């Protein structure tokens, strides 16, 4: 394991510290309990948006703290959801009285910790709503599982719900638009190589030289199945098929196409995947109205990508376009 780290157990502490130093104009870092808030939080009259989860997915979530997106991010240990004693003070810190929305990726740990925190924050007088993100079509049979995981769609939920909060929507409205994004987005990922969790020291799963993992999660947890390596077009076909059939997109619809890198794949390859995904959508008469390509929700240094398709309506498009000013996503300001 070769990593640019010092003590494997200090990775999150030191990384968040560096993040705070680099973006001191935008965010404030609380070291213990660990959470990151928007510099001007709480913003008077505005619904607060809090997300969080295990670390190792940077820039998610702390990179999305700022005007027009999150008010706070709560980083856990690597791939481990944060604890209520972090989530509660973060929630209190961004509550201006208008209530707080928790954006939670659907993993047992995240759900349980945010649930506990929400209860306790409510007990302190903060109204909390939860938007659960579960866009991963790789999880097929949700009856006998913990349900679909929250993956790439999370970034889109955070941007669009963040814009709704910024324009002054109330608590229920912000939660509703977050839910709407979640309901209209589907994601599927692939890993070409595993990542190595610093404290574990060895790759999170095994792949032969000629194998890839289809339907990979963002924690290095294995996916749907292993297949022999294929070319980018073939892999992209495999990712798009379940997304589009599950989303049930019809010709004439408008979508946002998001090709996300898992951390160790060059941007140039993401554009090759984007090219094929755009071709598939064009063949089906689906209009790509907006796009996002890059490393936004990663899995340490894993090689691979995920593709997300979000069915857009005019309101979502307008909220997507609204100004955002965070370390990792910025436009219009």
């Amino acid at each position, binding site marked *: 394991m070769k990593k640019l780290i010092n003590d494997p157990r200090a990775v999150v502490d030191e990384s968040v510290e560096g993040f705070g130093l680099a973006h001191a104009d935008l965010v404030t870092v609380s070291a213990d309990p660990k959470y990151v808030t928007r510099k001007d939080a709480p913003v008077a009259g505005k619904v607060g948006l809090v997300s969080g989860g*295990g670390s190792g997915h940077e820039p998610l979530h702390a990179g999305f703290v700022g005007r027009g997106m999150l008010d706070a991010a709560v980083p*856990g*240990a*690597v*791939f*481990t*959801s*944060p*604890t*209520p*004693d972090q989530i509660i003070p973060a929630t209190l810190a961004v509550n201006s009285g208008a209530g707080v929305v928790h954006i939670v990726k659907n*993993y*047992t*740990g995240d759900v*349980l*910790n945010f*649930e*506990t925190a929400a209860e306790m924050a409510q007990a302190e007088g903060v109204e909390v709503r939860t938007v659960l993100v579960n866009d991963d079509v*790789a*999880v*097929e*049979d949700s009856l*006998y*599982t*913990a349900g679909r*995981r929250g993956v790439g769609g999370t970034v889109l939920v955070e941007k669009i719900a963040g814009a709704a909060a910024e324009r002054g929507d109330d608590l229920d409205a912000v939660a509703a638009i977050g839910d709407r994004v979640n309901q209209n987005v589907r994601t599927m990922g692939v890993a070409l190589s595993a990542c190595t*969790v610093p*404290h*574990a020291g*060895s790759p*999170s*799963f095994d792949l032969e030289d000629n194998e890839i993992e289809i339907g990979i*999660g963002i*924690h*290095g*947890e*294995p*996916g749907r199945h292993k297949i022999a390596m294929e070319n980018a077009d073939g892999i992209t076909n495999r990712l798009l098929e379940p997304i589009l059939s599950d989303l049930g997109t019809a010709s004439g619809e408008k979508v946002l196409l998001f090709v996300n890198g898992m951390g160790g794949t060059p941007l140039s390859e993401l554009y090759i995947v984007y090219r094929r995904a755009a071709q598939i959508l064009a063949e089906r008469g689906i209009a790509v109205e907006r796009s996002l390509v890059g490393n936004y929700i990663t899995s340490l240094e894993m090689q691979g990508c995920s593709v997300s398709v979000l069915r857009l309506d005019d309101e979502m498009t307008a909220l997507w376009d609204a100004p955002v000013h965070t370390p990792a996503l910025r436009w219009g300001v």
Partner: protein
Amino acid sequence: MGLDVTWAVKWLTLSAQAMAEHRVELIELDRAIGDSDHGENMDRGFQAVLDKLAESPPETPGAALKLTAMALMSKVGGAAGPLYGTAFLRAATTLGDAAYVDAPALAAALAAARDGIVARGKAESGDKTMVDAWTPAADAAAAAAADGDTLAVLIAAAEAAEAGAVATDPLVARKGRASYLGERSAGHRDPGAASSALILRAAAGAAA
């Protein structure tokens, strides 16, 4: 009479030792069907328990378990944190502020812990989770409690938990992160069941 706070502190200390010793093993179990963090999470959590114990030594077994619940809840994270947190909290509530824990109280505490895990995680027996260690442990404790011997209760619970953990090997996971693997989760031991067995063995060791 029965077990006192010294036992409780020894239990937690032995648990912390067990988590440190088996850290890599638990990481490896989680690596196979999860995300490689369970050993790290539990080790971190029980180190925090030790710190808390040193900081403000508890006066009753119930207080020791409550402090443990709080430390685990705030330091473990992931799925295991809230689940173990709830388990220890429910057990602590059952024990109240009694200075001594007898065999029936022990069995009741273990049953409460199990119920807490089920209430939080909604897993059933056979879902390949820590419930598969706690349910047989609670049942075995209840059966052994009739004789009134606390050590026997704890040994029965530990043995049942260990057997329960082993029995998760062939199961297909239906809850937690391993459930995403579907059939591929069979053939691996559930990490949470394994850590549960270690903790219950520590309870017996502390009473021996």
